[in-house]
């Protein structure tokens, strides 16, 4: 693991894949819950885990630099099911990128188990991985000024669900009524790093 200093009290731990970042995040979170690691924030990224608010970053840095990436945690925990109408405006474009019929997009997407790799962009916005690399899609050339809340969207290797209306450049394949973020709910976020997710087709665009 490559450990980079970030200011006075943070470290950025770089690994070589999203799977390794997920495994490292799970392990560091476990250690914090156990009381053997004191950190204010443990923030996974696409290939990194940020540790912020550390009491002794120098010592932890040398410890982590000498450590192996932990093994991936078992696929435990319940699976969050998100009902989706696969009727997004970019469905045809995505089908084109994938080289499949439009109706096949829902089939492939809903047949995949996803996991939240990391969050960002907005509270409750998770970057979900699970689709094979051949289904990566580019962002749209021109971002939309307003993507509706609940839009299910693809960009690069990721699937995401917009928690609220915002500008966005992802390819929209559908929509959900699931509430991704509700600050009066505990927990507020439906999706947090490590959460397993399945998309369940609903409505007339459902699985054939």
């Amino acid at each position: 693991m490559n450990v980079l200093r970030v200011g006075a009290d943070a470290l950025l731990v770089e690994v070589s894949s999203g799977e390794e970042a997920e495994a490292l995040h799970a392990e560091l979170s476990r250690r914090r819950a156990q009381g053997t690691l004191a950190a204010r924030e443990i923030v996974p990224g696409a290939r990194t885990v940020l540790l912020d608010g550390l009491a002794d970053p120098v010592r932890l840095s040398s410890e982590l630099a000498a450590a192996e990436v932990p093994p991936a945690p078992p696929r435990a925990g319940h699976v969050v099911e998100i009902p989706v109408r696969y009727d997004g405006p970019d469905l045809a474009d995505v089908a084109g990128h994938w080289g499949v019929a439009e109706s096949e997009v829902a089939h492939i997407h809903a047949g995949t188990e996803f996991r939240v790799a990391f969050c960002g962009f907005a509270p409750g916005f998770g970057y979900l991985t699970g689709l094979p690399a051949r289904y990566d899609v580019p962002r749209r050339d021109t971002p939309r000024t307003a993507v509706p809340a609940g839009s299910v969207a693809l960009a690069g290797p990721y699937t995401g669900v917009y928690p609220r209306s915002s500008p966005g450049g992802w390819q929209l394949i559908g929509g959900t009524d699931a509430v991704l973020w509700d600050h009066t709910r505990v927990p507020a976020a439906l999706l947090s790093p490590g959460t397993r997710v399945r998309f369940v087709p609903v409505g007339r665009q459902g699985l054939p």
Partner: protein
Amino acid sequence: MTHRALTVVRAGALTTVQDLGRPGHAHLGVPRSGALDAPAAALVNRLVGNPPGSAVLETTLTGCALRAWCAVTVAVGGAPCPVTVDGRPAPWGAAVGVPAGALLDVGAADSGVRSYVAVSGGVLVEPVLGSRSTDLLSGLGPPPLADGTVLPLGRPRVPHARVDVAPQPAPPAELVLRVAPGPRADWFTPAAMRALTSSVYRVSSASNRIGLRMDGPALERARPGELPSEGTVLGAVQVPTDGRPVVFLADHPTTGGYPVIGVVRTADLPAAAQAVPGTPVRFVTAGGR
């Protein structure tokens, strides 16, 4: 009148409720938020006898005016400004009694950007994830104040601290930011790091609670493109595609793909929050500690 509350008579350009913010939720995409000039917010709380985490008001350049429903003790600090109660001058940086029904006017900043207004008992709007702070990036917390907004107040602690006046640092004529290189300094040319630490930048008028934007030389990249998204910290000096550095303040995004050339010491950020557009900025290299 038994209600403890304030009515906003003049919201000003941008006045928000702020406390210590909501750190600990960055992994969910939740910015830390909180008062940008945290020492000033803590000081005005102390002047009115509030605990340091009580919610205060953070104004931006033009102040605000509030009518008290009940007798309260207030203190205004941070950016120096005129303070009046029912039109009569009152001291800045000191505890001031405001009778029930009176109008507290916090004037435009004489220097600096953000004045802080503490009220005995604290502003008691509904907390979100343990904080009453307005987060302008993600929209969490109460919306910025509008004319007519009613702000409920908590019960004051009695007796309140007997600190009458407290010294506060003057807003900076020149901002000096100590920066520890990394984590992505290697994404820039050696000339870029020299440019960062030898040029005079100026605070851009596009600065806000998310970041202090810089006008000045663009920093040259050694490699193009974006990083896979990674976590970011308070004080990070992020360099977007135009090459002009942005210093992340409390409402900064939790992850990003633009490289961070260095990180400004947290202790230097309260002064950054008070630097008006056009203020000269010098970055000086400092170790990580």
